[in-house]
């Protein structure tokens, strides 16, 4: 875990593109918030591996949002139920339900539907937010952080040794 965080820190401090990090956070968020064993997560995984995004950020984001998903499950369930039971959408759901591809997506599961909707709505916000944080971190926060005594103490720890080892 420490290695993973160190790699993430290295990416933040490296020349890795800010959008590459931001998309990694977004994809990890979708994977973390939605139930794991769903077909759409294969697409997320394919995107994370195929496109040149930071895998450390992707994994950290997945782990963090998996924990958050546990807290939000009841909310996802409510949203999913209200959408799936919405009269105006019944025709769409019936069509999807009647098709093998629609059934494979398992859209008719309340938490799956609710979490996909929330993660898709939150995706652009998280992308922009992550991008701004990375840019600001590199411009201002990194220098300010290095001056903190806590960080200076951290630099004497094992974590920093791992980080330094990765940085080479």
């Amino acid at each position, binding site marked *: 875990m420490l290695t993973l965080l160190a790699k993430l820190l290295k990416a933040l401090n490296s020349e890795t593109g800010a959008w590459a990090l931001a998309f990694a956070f977004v994809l990890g968020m979708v994977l973390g918030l939605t139930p794991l064993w769903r077909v759409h997560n294969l697409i997320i995984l394919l995107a994370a591996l195929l496109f*040149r995004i930071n895998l450390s950020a992707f994994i950290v984001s997945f782990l963090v949002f998996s924990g958050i998903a546990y807290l939000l499950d009841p909310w996802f369930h409510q949203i999913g139920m209200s959408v799936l039971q919405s009269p105006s959408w019944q025709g769409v*759901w019936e069509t999807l*339900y009647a098709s093998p591809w629609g059934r494979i997506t398992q859209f008719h599961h309340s938490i799956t539907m609710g979490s996909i909707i929330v993660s898709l709505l939150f995706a652009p916000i998280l992308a922009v937010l992550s991008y701004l944080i990375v840019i600001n971190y590199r411009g201002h926060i990194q220098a300010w952080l290095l001056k903190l005594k806590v960080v200076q103490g951290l630099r004497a720890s094992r974590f920093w040794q791992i980080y330094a080892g990765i940085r080479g």
Partner: protein
Amino acid sequence: MKRSIIRWPGLLAFVVFVGLLVAFSWLFLDSILRWGMEKTLGRLNGAEVNIERVEHSWVPLSIGVYGIQVTNPQQPENNRVVVGEVRADIDTGQLLLGRYIFEQMNASGIRVDQPRDSAGEVYAPVTKDSLLDAAGSGLEALDIELPSVDDIMQQVNIQTETVIANAKQTFAEQQQKLEQAKAALPSDETLKSYEQRIKELTEGKIEGLGDLAQRREQLEKLKADFRADRDAVKQFKDTVSQARETLSAELAAVKSAPGDDIDRIQQFFKLDSQGLGNVTSLVFGEKARQWSQYILLAYEQVAPMLARSSNDQTIEPARGQGQWLSFTEDDAPPEFLIKKAVTEFAFGDTVLDVDWRNITHQHQQLGQPTTFQARADNNGLWQSFNLNGELSLGENGIDARQQWQLKGLKLSDTPLSESSAFSATLLATTLDTDGSMAVRSNQLEGNGAIRLANLDIQASGEQRWAQLVGQALGQLQRLDIRANMSGDITSPSLSLNSDLDRQLTEALTGTAMSAAQDKLDAVKARLNEQVQSALSEQQPQLAELTQLLELADSKDSRLNDLLNAKAEDSVGDKLKEGLFKKLGGNN
């Protein structure tokens, strides 16, 4: 140089990952299916379902499930049903469309109400009354206290002594009245003096009219005394008659008092059959409940599971589980359908096949009910058995009907009750049963008859009542039990009634009476002794009354003679004779 946005090694990694995933699923498919079935069936059942193993084959696509244990949510220590093996062929084309269509399913080694190694987890607790209301209370609740003679003597309030005391008091009162009346009677001396005076007045020589008038006047005075005395005699006779009548009644009451008391004591020995409770249910209830689970299997086991599968609301989804919704159209084929199924129920070495058609929870979409039929004749256990029925799930719940006939079922060494207070074993009997039931909107109503012939029951217990019930059961040759089923389909209630309660009441009463006979005889002897003592005092008094009455009659007669006949005639004759002489006539 700017690097490409595509990371081709990443694609390779994805392919490897998916390949590993497929290989993992392929290798562990049976375990994954087992896990999924346990979860799904557990959710439908409302309690833990365990599956020993699952096997599959791809061509043709089929699945075999072995060692299924379905926990009873009402009794987690027991499995509501155990299935040895289930094999089913799946329609591959329909499976791709998300429909589970089974052309043929065979289930064998089915047993109901079997104990589990450890209590199963209950996901959806059901507040269900005991299937058998009375059986739930247990035999310990059967509080039969056989009365003892001493207890009964205290309760009965023996009347003999009171009757004797009342008779003695009445005798004393009557005696007092008699004494008063007797004192007013003319004595023999008085009567003799009356006779002497009459004689003097009537037989002496009359000295003219003055003498005659004087005699007449004295005679009138005497007649007045006679009348007074006669009234006194009459009063005395009335008193004696009344006393004799009263005392005769009292003596009759005294004589009958011991018998009345014994009758009332015996009446107390007669037990109230209602106080016994429903012994039929207590003795046969638990076993009948188990039997009924076979009869009600389609309703108790399958129907609730189908109902749950059609309505996820029946089980509150666990956190993080979510809910699966169905969007089938009304005319769409069912999502789950077993077209044909054979379930083999095991009764020891005997197997009963039940043929099912169209097992589904979407009968409206299928347009047909689920039907089941079982017929088996002349096997080792019974002569003939026939069961058929159908059920369907509609908007209002379950609608169903079924009927059954079973003849010549031979039962032996069947434990009926293993309570600490009372144990009973059906050593041997021949059982016939028939009946029918119907379910309308989840409400069950039905009745049946259970006839037990050539009964041989061995029952015992430490307490006295248990021994007596055991004796009574041991005397039973045959027993007709009427069974009524009613209530909600998920919690049906079964009530049993028979003439066992009456038979048992009579047997217990007889036994109690027999046990108390010595004491009763002693009580009777003591009461009779008291009565004889009282009678020996009072019967002479009654005889004396008769003598007194004879005496009064005698005095009454003498007074009447004095008053009415001799005095008037003799005085009149004397006067006539005197007048004729004075006138000189001869006649």
